[in-house]
């Protein structure tokens, strides 16, 4: 028994109609039900009491104390490159310390700060030259270099790329909550770099290279989605007090915004951050694809607490010479 060409075409058309109906129904029925909260605080400068700001954010997001009490917390800042005086490149050390203090005050049993720098093979050098080492040493908060740790593999839960598994550093199995402590920046390959792209920095360089070329060949957008789908981080905090515009993530210009953005769902946080930057999240490839399974990016599905987006939004400079930044404007 075989199909005729006509039967085959009919079956194909029927399949396409069914798929389109499913997508339509998902968008109409399922998507509206997925709601997430994000929190925005106005913070005028880096001398603020970040612990209090972040504690307020945790309360506004409905994160009950039991979620944190007794838990081991890993804070993953965005530590890319150190350039003295340039506060727009890395998550500010005082934001990192504030986050550590907030979690410790909430009863966390341990707070670690960890990073696996993508360009620099000496993570400790970045840690020192960024000023983060001295700040964390005051409170004896430990720092972990993720780049040289033994790895453990998990099946790729996202399957956006061809990678069948992802290898994470051993420390990630020893913590209860993973917090992406990102910076509000543009990016010359991904368009923007926020809480989701920040997690490239948990992938050990011993397994992925310096830079993490394995992920580039897999497709940066796909790799961002796969890492987030597989790791399932628990919270995002984005340092937008002074962000970066233009040629991010390193060579761009400082962009004062005066905002800290938080949320439990990273796509929702990134979408909110994109709107703060006056960038359309639907025009950012990885964010648009996030909506299929990782979290909502539609404004109607994000419950905004704290300040409004409009009160902090400011247009980030985008460069025409950078293809990933073209046509991102909201």
């Amino acid at each position, binding site marked *: 028994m075989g199909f005729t060409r006509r039967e085959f075409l009919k079956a194909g058309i029927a399949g396409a109609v069914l798929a389109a109906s499913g997508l339509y129904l998902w968008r109409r029925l399922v998507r509206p039900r997925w709601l997430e909260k994000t929190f925005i605080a106005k913070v005028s400068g880096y001398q603020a009491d970040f612990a209090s700001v972040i504690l307020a954010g945790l309360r506004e997001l409905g994160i009950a104390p039991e979620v944190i009490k007794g838990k081991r917390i890993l804070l993953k800042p965005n530590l890319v*490159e150190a*350039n003295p005086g340039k506060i727009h490149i890395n998550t500010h050390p005082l934001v990192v310390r504030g986050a550590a203090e907030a979690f410790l005050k909430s009863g966390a049993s341990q707070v670690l700060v960890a990073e696996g720098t993508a*360009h*620099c*093979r*000496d993570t*400790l*050098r970045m*840690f*020192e030259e960024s000023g983060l*080492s001295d700040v964390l*040493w005051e409170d004896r908060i*430990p*720092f972990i270099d993720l780049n*040289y*740790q*033994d*790895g453990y*593999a998990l099946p790729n839960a996202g399957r956006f790329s061809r990678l069948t598994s992802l*290898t994470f550093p*051993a420390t990630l199995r020893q913590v209860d909550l993973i917090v992406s402590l990102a910076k509000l920046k543009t990016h*010359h390959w991904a368009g923007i770099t926020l809480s989701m792209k920040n997690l490239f920095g948990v992938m050990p*360089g*011993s*397994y*992925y*290279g*310096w*830079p993490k*070329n*394995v992920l580039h*060949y897999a497709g940066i957008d796909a790799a961002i989605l796969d890492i987030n789908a597989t790791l399932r981080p628990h919270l995002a905090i984005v340092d937008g007090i002074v962000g970066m515009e233009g*040629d991010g993530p*390193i*060579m761009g210009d400082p962009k004062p915004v005066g905002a800290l953005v938080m949320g439990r769902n990273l796509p929702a946080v990134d979408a909110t951050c994109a709107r703060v930057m006056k960038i359309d999240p639907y025009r950012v490839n990885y964010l648009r694809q996030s909506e299929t399974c990782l979290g909502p990016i539609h404004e109607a599905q994000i419950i905004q607490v704290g300040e409004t987006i409009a009160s902090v939004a400011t247009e980030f400079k985008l*460069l025409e*010479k*950078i293809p990933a930044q073209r046509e991102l404007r909201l």
Partner: protein
Amino acid sequence: MSDSFVSYSVKKLRQRALGKGGFANADNSSYRCDATAWAILALVAAGEDHDNELLSLARTRLAASQLSDGRVSLSPEHPEIYWPTPLAILAWHQSPAHQARLSQAANFLLQNSGRHWQTQPEFAVKLDNTLKGWPWVDGNSSWVAPTALAIIALKTAGYGNQPRVSEAQRMLLDRECLHGGWNYGNKLVFGVEIRPMPEDTGIALDALQDSTAKSSLKRSLAYLKSAVKSLQTPIALAWSLLGLGAWGERPAAAPAMLSECLKRQDRYGVYDTTCLSLLILAARSSGGLEKIFNPDPVLPKG
């Protein structure tokens, strides 16, 4: 260099030796081929090569990480991650029992490279990608550090006159930053100059030893001589000292710098095997990495 510095570091390395041979990269963890190779080199540099059993077991355990095509991969689950291959070559150097392994590894490197293609003028990244080097991971692009390590290993093992070695050195020269120094391997992206890093500058300078006129590396040497003064972390400091040493520019303050770096363990905990090994190598070699096999009679051993 203070004997106590080296003795302390050697003691820590020995604590990470495993019963079945080889070394772990950290306390209470399992075998790692890169840590094993680095530890072997460090023990040789520290004058511990009289301990035949420890080194022999380690070299043999390293051989178990070698695949049939000669590559030495980071783990059995990841045969594609072959950047430890040059480390294994160095670790097997001067070990008669492992010369066949060494030859296989060298031949693997000579027959393989990173991914290369003709770059177009409109590409965002400006470099000559036709020049072959070596990648971190099979199927990826060539980068400065794995290429430099492969050059050092092949030269040390007697393959320095191979065309792939001279091509790889030309690749490194192509990746030199516009104002001197090296980073991971990009110098200009979207028209913007990318900054150098000391650890990559050091390893590149070591790999280029005797391959080009010193005058042509003036800017890179100047960058590194300035950068090394403020370095306190093991990987950057060790490679900077090795790279400067390769060109006769090792700072007189090197022993004090290494001691200060070791004291930072008060803040960071005991360094991993790779870091401790690099510090020993930088302490014991007056020149580049390969100098440990032809030690300077001026520097004391053990």
